Structures are given as structure tokens and as C-alpha cells.
């Protein structure tokens, strides 16, 4: 199952002494500039912003909620460690550095078969990334979703259900429905647009 629910509750939100308009690079520069000391507020804010993106990357490539949560934790710890050591050459490009770290971690896990290095024991942290309001969608109304799914055309509903049952690409769904991949993409796109439109309307009229 893929869910954006977190496996473990996060720590209480720290009081932030950072401006909302600070970009990710500015936060990274602040953390690097404070080394060897710590800028706890900047670290917490950076984790709040980047944590959900790392989890999403983990879900995409590992297809496991638990593994994605592990990846998020490990990558954030490694990134903060590098920032504190002054080992990030371009803090203003922190998002690229985080992505590179996430990619390498996934490669390493796959190569070694190891799931969870005990890096936290060697490098304790007193923060945890929090739900980011800007990156967390509103919980879906299951009843409305049911009505909106029922209002789709037969083929749209079939394609969406068969796609999201196990996140199948268009060519695999097409083979099962005796359609072309292009057809499935068109039906899938149209169905999703109609579904999202229905879900966003007051009352959920299809």
C-alpha cells in the first residue's frame, strides 16, 4: 500500500525562527554558516520542507511506506551532517544535493540489501520533519470519491482502477484490456481530470 500517512508520529513542531520566504538554499546556507554550531530552527524548517519530497521519491522507487520513511530519515540525517561539516559545496543548490543523496542511498540499499543502517545511533538528532501544510493534500472524502468514480464512464473507471490497483503503466493495462497504450493514456487522463473535477466541486456533482 502506498499512503502518505506517516508510519510514526512526528515530534512536536519547533518554534521557527526562519522567514517563510527563505528559500531552501538560504536555509542551507544558514546551517552551513553556523557550523560547527547548530541552527536548530533552520534545520527543522529545511527538514519540514524536504522530508515529504524525499518520502515521495522513496515511495516511487521503493514502493514501500516503511522503506520510504526510512529513506527520508536517513537522507535528512546525512544531508544535515554534510551541511554541518561544511561539506556541501553549493548550499544554494541543496535540493539537487538532497536528490543525489536519495538516489545514492537507494542504489546502496539495493546493492547491499541492507534496509536500515543504524546511522541514527551514531548521529542522534533531536528533530523530526513535520507535516508540511503546503505539501500535504487535504484528506480525501471517501464517500464523494465513490460517487465520482461511479459517475465516470465504464472504460475510465476500469482503466483507473486497473492502473492504481498496483500502479501499472499504460502498456500493461492496455495489454489486459486489448487496447493500445495510447488509448489507455487518453482514457486515463480524461478519467483523472473528470474525477478531480468532480472531487473539487461542492457536493461532488459529476
Amino acid at each position: 500500500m502506498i499512503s502518505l500517512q506517516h508510519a510514526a508520529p512526528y515530534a512536536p513542531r519547533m518554534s521557527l525562527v526562519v522567514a517563510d520566504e527563505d528559500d531552501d538554499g538560504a536555509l542551507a546556507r544558514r546551517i552551513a554558516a553556523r557550523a560547527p554550531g547548530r541552527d536548530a530552527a533552520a534545520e527543522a524548517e529545511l527538514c519540514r520542507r524536504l522530508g515529504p519530497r524525499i518520502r515521495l521519491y522513496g515511495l516511487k522507487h521503493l514502493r514501500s511506506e516503511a522503506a520510504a520513511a526510512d529513506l527520508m530519515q536517513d537522507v535528512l540525517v546525512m544531508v544535515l551532517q554534510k551541511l554541518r561539516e561544511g561539506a556541501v559545496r553549493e548550499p544554494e543548490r541543496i535540493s539537487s544535493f538532497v536528490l543525489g543523496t536519495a538516489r545514492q542511498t537507494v542504489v546502496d540499499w539495493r546493492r547491499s540489501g541492507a534496509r536500515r543502517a543504524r546511522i541514527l545511533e551514531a548521529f542522534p538528532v533531536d528533530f523530526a520533519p513535520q507535516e508540511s501544510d503546503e505539501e500535504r493534500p487535504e484528506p480525501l472524502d471517501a464517500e464523494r470519491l465513490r460517487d465520482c468514480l461511479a459517475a465516470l464512464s465504464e472504460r475510465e473507471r476500469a482503466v483507473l482502477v486497473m492502473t492504481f490497483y498496483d500502479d501499472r503503466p499504460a502498456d500493461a493495462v492496455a495489454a489486459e484490456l486489448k487496447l493500445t497504450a495510447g488509448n489507455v493514456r487518453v482514457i486515463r487522463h480524461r478519467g483523472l481530470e473528470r474525477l478531480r473535477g468532480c472531487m473539487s466541486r461542492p457536493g461532488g456533482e459529476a
Partner: protein
Amino acid sequence: MRASCPSPAQELLEYWLGELDAEREHALEEHLFACAACSARLAALVDLGAAIRRELLAGRCAFVTSAPFIRRLKEAGFHVREYAPPAGGSVDCTVTPDDDFVVAYLEAPLGGVERLDLVIDDSTSGKQRANDVAFDAGGVVAVTSTAYLRTLRHSQMRVRLVAVQGVNERVIGDYTFNHYPST
């Protein structure tokens, strides 16, 4: 190669489903890590997909699918109750607490058919028509909502497969399901 902002929903979905080539996937990932708005849009898409899956697995979806998809459900360990009434015939059916899915195989000679509709006359919920359903040359595979079936007392459903060509319609198969609550 730089992904545009905001990334189109179609591209985000193609990324999620592994349909992009390596170059486009890497470019989009660079963008997603730098762009909170597109990352949030992808998260919403993933959330919607997960919600559809929950509806399916909770037995709250009725849809016409294919035999290979049903095989995959069974291989994944789901309990699938299956009925295959002969054309023109009837079958007694039910749903038990152990059933995850109830599937009807409607066999009919569908070679040459361009569009097929499913007309259902349900003694409980009335008449419904599903237009342009998926089919192959051998027939139709229909998944019924187990959540709905569990609400039924004795009920009868007459299902007809109707081939549509222009303004002409032709009934190709007629099946009757006599539903009884599980005892």
C-alpha cells in the same frame, strides 16, 4: 533538459507509473525536489490513486475488466467468488464474509462487435445501463461491488449484453443472477 513548472498532471502520473524515459525522469525529479508546488501536486495524485485502490480493495467498486486482471487479484491472495452462467441461463449466487470480490464471466460470441453495452435490470435497484464496456472476443468480465451485494436480501439481476452499431442494437447475451444472502 529542464522540466517546466508547473509540471502537467499527465507527466507527473507518467513519472509515478514509470513511463518516462531516464532523461525525462531525472529532469522531473530535479524539478520536484526544488519545487514545492509540483511536489504537492504529485503527492495529491498519489493520494488519489491510493484512495481509488482503497475503494477497490474494500469492495466498493463495480467495473468491467479482463480475465488477466482477475487472475492477478487471485495471485495476490484475494478471495474471488466467480460465476459463469450460460447465455440465456441463470445462476444462484451469493457473497460470503470471506469474499473480497465477486466476478461474473458473461460468455458470448463478440467477434466483430464494435461497441458493447451492459443493460442491468436489478429487482432491488432498478435499471442501469453501462455504455461501451471492455470486452474481448469471448465475452465480458464484470466485477460487482461486494459492499452492495452484502446489503441485498433475495434479489434478481437480469443482465443483457447489447451490441451497438450506429442506431442499431442487438442483444447478444442474456443472463439471470438469483442472489441469496449468505447463511
